[in-house]
C-alpha cells in the first residue's frame, strides 16, 4: 500500500492562504488505510483549517468529499459540481491523486495536503514501515523475501556494510540491519548459498522515468 503522511498544518495554511472557499478531498484507498487521507482525516483537517483561519480573524469555508480512488479519472470527475463552488482544491490523496484532480480540473489550483512517503505495510497500530522501493526489478527471490534495496539504508546487494550494530543499522539504532535479517532467514531456510553469490549492480533504469506499463487489452 502507498503510505502517506499529513503535511504540517502551517505548510497547508500557507498554500491556501489566499482562498476563502476550498474543497478538501479525501481518497478512500491506500491513504484511508494508513490513516492519512480518509473521510476522518478530511474532517479533521477541515476543522483544523477553520479553527486556524478563525484565529487569524477570517472565516474559511470548507466543503468535504472523499472519493473511492483519486487516481481514477471517472471517479474524480464525480467532483465536478463541488469543484465549481470553490476557489481551490486541497487533496489528501497520494501524488497520483493530486495530479489526477489537477489534470481533470485544470481551471482550478489543486494543492497537496499529504507527503507521499513510500510503499509499505503496517507494523503495529498506527505504525507503517517502508518495505518496497518500487525499483522495477524485484530482487526478493535472492534474499529470503527481505528487500535490501529499501530496508538497507545503503541499498547494498552483496551483504552488510561495516556498520551493523548488534543487528541494527548504524544510521538508526531503531531499525534492523536488513542484511542481518536476510542472513538469519536464509540460514534458517538452509539457503545461505544465495547470500554467497555475487550480484552485479542492479538496473537503475528498470523503470524509465516516468514509468509506464502497457498490458495487453483484457
Amino acid at each position, binding site marked *: 500500500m502507498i503510505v502517506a503522511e499529513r503535511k504540517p498544518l502551517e505548510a497547508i495554511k500557507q498554500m491556501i492562504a489566499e482562498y476563502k472557499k476550498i474543497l478538501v478531498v479525501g481518497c478512500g484507498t491506500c491513504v484511508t488505510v494508513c490513516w492519512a487521507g480518509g473521510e476522518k482525516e478530511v474532517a479533521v483537517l477541515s476543522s483544523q483549517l477553520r479553527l486556524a483561519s478563525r484565529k487569524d480573524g477570517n472565516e474559511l469555508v470548507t466543503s468535504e468529499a472523499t472519493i473511492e480512488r483519486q487516481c481514477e479519472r471517472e471517479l474524480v470527475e464525480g467532483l465536478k459540481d463541488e469543484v465549481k463552488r470553490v476557489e481551490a482544491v486541497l487533496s489528501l490523496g497520494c501524488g497520483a491523486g493530486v495530479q489526477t484532480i489537477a489534470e481533470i480540473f485544470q481551471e482550478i489550483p489543486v494543492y497537496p495536503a499529504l507527503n507521499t512517503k513510500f510503499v509499505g505495510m503496517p507494523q503495529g497500530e498506527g505504525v507503517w514501515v517502508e518495505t518496497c522501493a518500487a525499483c522495477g526489478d524485484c530482487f526478493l527471490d535472492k534474499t529470503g523475501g527481505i528487500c535490501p534495496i529499501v530496508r538497507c*539504508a545503503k541499498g*547494498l546487494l552483496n*551483504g552488510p556494510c561495516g556498520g*551493523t*550494530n548488534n543487528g541494527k543499522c548504524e544510521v538508526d539504532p531503531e531499525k534492523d540491519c536488513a542484511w542481518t535479517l536476510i542472513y538469519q532467514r536464509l540460514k534458517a531456510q538452509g539457503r545461505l548459498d544465495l547470500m554467497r553469490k555475487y550480484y552485479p*549492480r542492479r538496473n537503475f533504469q528498470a523503470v524509465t522515468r516516468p514509468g509506464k506499463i502497457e498490458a495487453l487489452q483484457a
Partner: protein
Amino acid sequence: MARPFKETLNSGKFVVTSEVGPPKGTDLEKMIHHIDLLKDKVDALNVTDNQSSVMRFPSLGTVLLIKEHGGEPILQMTCRDRNCLALQADLLLAYTRGIRNVLCLTGDSITVGDHKDAKAVFDLDSVQLLHMVRTMESGKDLGGNDLQGAVEFCVGATVTPEANPIEPQLIKFEKKVEAGAEFFQTQAVYDLDNFKKFMEYARGLDKNIKILAGIVLLAGAKMARHMNENVPGIFVPQDLIDELAGAEKGKALQKGIEIAGRLIRQIKEEAICDGVHIMAIGREEVVPDILEAAGF
C-alpha cells in the same frame, strides 16, 4: 621513488600504512606537511574519500599530490558520491597519473555527514566496485564497451572483525576475496585475541590475502568510551580504557600512543597478520611517535 605497494605487500615485510585526511577547503599546507612527514616512514599513504560523509578536498587530488611529493598513495573510493560512470572515469585519470593502488569501500551513510539531505548514490556496492576494477583491467568498461587502454591496480578492501553479528560480515569478506581484493584493511582492532580468531578464519580461506590490522589512535578514555558506544564494529576492552583513564593529566595522548605502539609491536612479533594501517584521525603528526613506540 617509493617502492610500489604491490611489491611491498609481496615482499614478506611487515607492512605499515597510514592515512591522510584532506581538509575542507583549498588550504593544503598542513596536509602537505603531513605527507612530507610520513611519506618515507610508511609503506603507503591512504587518502580518505569524503570521510564520514563530510565534503572535503578530493581523495583523487590528494593522491596526485602524494605522488608529486614522492610518496606511494592508495586511492580510497567509496560508492556513496559517484555513480559508475564517474567512478570509472576517476580510475582512468588516476591510472594515467601513475596511481596504482585503490581501496574499495561502500562509504558511510549520507545521514552521518554534513550534507544530510544529499542524494546517496550507491550505484555500486563495495563488492561490485572491486568487480568494476577487475573488469576495467580486462579492457572493458561496465557497459561492456572496449577501453582504449586498460588500467591495472593493486586493489584492496575493508573488513570489520568485531562486527556483530560477524557471520554476514564474513560472507561479504569472502565475496570481496573472490572479487579479487589483494589486501584488506580492517576496522580498528584492540582485542587481539578476538582478532586472532578472525585471522585464523581468514588464513583458512586464502593464505595469500594480505591483511593489515587497523590501528586507531586513542586520544583518551573519553574517546574510547565514545567509540564503544557509537561506532559499530569497534570494541575497546575495559582494561585499555582503565589504562587511559589512569594516565596523568595531559598525558592521555601519550598513553594512547604507547598503547598503539604496543599493539603494533605485538602484532608484528606474533606475526598475527601482514601489517598495520595506522589511523591517527586528525593527529597525523604523532604517527612517527607511534612507529617509534612500536620499535620501528
